[in-house]
Each structure stands twice: as C-alpha cells, then as structure tokens.
C-alpha cells in the first residue's frame, strides 16, 4: 500500500481572526547571517560562525467571520496553527495523515482584503528570531 501523504487543511487559525477558513498557510525557516573563514588555499571553508539568528515566519490566509486585526496587535506575540485534513480518506482507506505547522511569534503584518463579488480575505504573519 502506498504511503499516505499529508493533504488539505483541517483546524487552525489564530485568536485575532474568528471563523477563519484557511485557504493557505506557509511557514519558512531561514539561516541567519553567516561569517566564513576561507582557508589556504582559499577555495575551502575552514570555519563558519553564525552572526545573526535563524528566522522563522508563518502566514495564514483565509475567509473569516470577524477579526481584531488592529494597530495594537502589531509587535505583540500571536500564535498561528494549521493542521492537516484528516477527515478525507487516504489511499490506504483510513483517515488522512495528521500533521501540523505552528509558530508563536511577533505579529509583523496583517492585511484584510475585500473584493466585490468575492469573500473577504484576512492574512496575518508572525515572525520568530532564534531557536
């Protein structure tokens, strides 16, 4: 039997957005600034040090019922969580595999977009530096 892969979105969101139907969510991790010591001959790297910490960012976007996205939220700590859809049957015939992404970090930006003839969409991004 083939391995079941993680699919879709189940529960998740953040306290600042009520009733969100998450369309997509992304979490990234990036290395900080790296200082490298080249050797002799200097086509090799002898030693590497980290200068600035790693950075993780997470963004969720979706339709919503209501929100409390305001100026006061920026710069404060917010937790975003998104779980996979485990209700759809996977290839094995059992519930879909469970997995999740989550990040508790500083809210760096949010947006609310309204469009004529479409659902309003809210988005929020949090960032955490260091381990």
């Amino acid at each position, binding site marked *: 039997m083939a391995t079941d892969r993680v699919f879709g979105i189940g529960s998740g969101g953040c306290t600042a957005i009520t009733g969100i139907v998450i369309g997509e969510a992304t979490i990234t991790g990036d290395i900080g600034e790296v200082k490298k010591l080249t050797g002799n001959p200097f*086509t090799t790297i002898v030693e590497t040090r980290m200068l600035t910490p790693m950075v993780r960012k997470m963004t969720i976007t979706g339709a919503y019922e209501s929100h409390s996205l305001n100026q006061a939220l920026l710069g404060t700590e917010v937790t975003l969580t998104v779980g996979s859809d485990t209700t759809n049957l996977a290839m094995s015939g059992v519930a879909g595999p469970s997995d999740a992404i989550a990040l508790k970090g500083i809210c760096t930006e949010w947006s609310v977009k309204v469009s004529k003839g479409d659902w309003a969409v809210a988005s929020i991004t949090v960032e955490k530096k260091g381990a």
Partner: protein
Amino acid sequence: MVAKIFSITPGSAVGSITGIVVGDATLDGKCGSLKELTGNPGTEIEDTRIGEATTQTLSCNFAFAAGGATSIQALTFDGTTAVSVTAGTLTLSGYLTHWEVKAVKDDWWVGSCTVVKEGV
C-alpha cells in the same frame, strides 16, 4: 537515439525525512569570485583563478507523509552541520539555509529545503 533522462526516481530523502515525493529539484554549482590577471595590453585575460570557494546548492520541493511537517519545523541552522538531501538522482550534503512548509486547502502539503555546500 539514446533515451534522455526523464522524471525523478524514487527513494528521495531530506536528512531523516523519508517517504517524500519530490516534485522538482535543482542542483546548482557556481564558482566563487574569480580572480583574473589581465595581460599587457589590458584587453586580454592572461590567467584565471577561483577566488572565494565554489558553491553547490540543492533545492527541492516535495510532498511528505505524516510527521513530515513536524520534522521540517524541527530543523535548525548552524551553518555547518551537514544535512544530506537526495532528490532522485541529485544529491548533496551541505548545511541548511532555508526550509518551508506550505499547506493549501485542496492540495498536498509541500515541503521545501535548500542546502549549500561550499568548497570542495
């Protein structure tokens, strides 16, 4: 006519994360800075040497099984620890510079990572 390389072979892995299905992967190689000696007159290059170290980079995007996102989020960066990435026939052991997990409402979750190896 000799058959050309097609698609991606099974058996890919990112560190300890196995059971992944690679959608695409790219292996890049770049020379570092080049040191060039211009001749006399200065309209020609007499000699060329590699300055800063060569860089190899492997990036890949992949679907994954349960626990894959959790494992990806646990990856940390120290600029030195080698993470071995195999994406079909492409392989590189280097330090991690970027990872990503993207969840979409009606599609497979996609993990991404980039490792870099500097020097020989």
